[in-house]
């Protein structure tokens, strides 16, 4: 039984963590101080981390689905660990995405929440992935747990695709979009035409993607270490 922490990878992860932390501070600083104020007021600035966190979360869920496919092909535990780590991180990112959307909606739509198609699909997506963690905890046999979780992770990714495209296929949504024309009923639309807005948006998306990768890597290390300690305990108890 080898210790799961490699010194070389630890150094790379430490470097990546520092880069991600600096990028995070710069991204928030750009959103608050650098991007110009829109006609909606200061609250519009929450849009940059709002979209960035969705991109980071969607990437994490995509990684989980891909890891699920690879687990079913290879049956290697590392893909199961990757899927679990990615989904836990994705839940944090999309959770913030939903909450920040509600905070923006209060002054713009005059409500914290409405059962709009986009908001509802985002909530269903988050709950579907929260159920993934409950599913894992309800199955004791590790092989069966990993197999079912892989299948569930692949199927749950359909909710991410649905949430992404719903503003293009449902004209009755009031959620605005920034790439391409907003739906006809969209409320609170704003243009991202100023170069400083574009730079802030792009940097926020990049930052949240780097942050997602960093946190997934940290979560993988935690899971590997957890399995290592569990195996040591088992060896001690059965000697």
């Amino acid at each position, binding site marked *: 039984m080898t210790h799961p922490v490699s010194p070389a990878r630890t150094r790379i992860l430490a470097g990546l963590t520092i880069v991600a932390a600096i990028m995070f501070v710069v991204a928030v600083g750009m959103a608050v101080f650098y991007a110009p104020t829109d006609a909606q007021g200061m609250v519009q600035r*929450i849009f940059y981390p709002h979209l960035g966190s969705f991109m980071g979360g969607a990437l994490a869920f995509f990684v989980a689905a891909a890891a699920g496919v690879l687990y079913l092909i290879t049956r290697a535990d590392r893909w199961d660990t990757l899927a679990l780590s990615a989904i836990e*991180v994705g839940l*944090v990112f999309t*959770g*913030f995405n939903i909450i920040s959307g509600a905070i923006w909606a209060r002054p713009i739509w005059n409500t914290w929440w409405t059962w709009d198609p986009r908001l509802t699909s985002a909530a269903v997506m988050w709950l579907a992935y929260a159920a993934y963690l409950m599913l894992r905890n309800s199955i004791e046999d590790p092989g069966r747990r990993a197999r079912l979780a892989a299948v569930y992770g692949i199927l749950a990714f359909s909710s991410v695709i649905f949430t992404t495209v719903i503003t293009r296929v449902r004209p009755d949504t009031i959620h605005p979009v920034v790439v391409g024309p907003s739906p006809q009923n969209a409320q609170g639309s704003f243009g991202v035409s100023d170069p400083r807005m574009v730079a802030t948006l792009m940097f926020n998306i990049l930052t949240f993607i780097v942050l997602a990768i960093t946190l997934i890597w940290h979560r993988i290390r935690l899971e590997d270490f957890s399995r290592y300690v569990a195996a040591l*305990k088992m060896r001690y108890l059965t000697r």
Partner: protein
Amino acid sequence: MFFLQETPIPDNLSYLILGLLALFTFFGVFIASLIWRMRNLRHDMALLEQMAAEDVPVGDVAVVEKPGAAASRPASST
């Protein structure tokens, strides 16, 4: 000239602050949970290493007492 007046930008700074608070809370709590879980695992690991070094029998793990603890315990009626 009434028609040249611009629409005033609404004052909703408090919602931006709330959004930033949510941002730092979400990610802060998750990172703190990673640190806390790693610390617990390291503690378990240290305990396992200590038990292996002292060669404590598995069945005795739960009944290891400090010296003198039995003497200070109140006498049982049974």
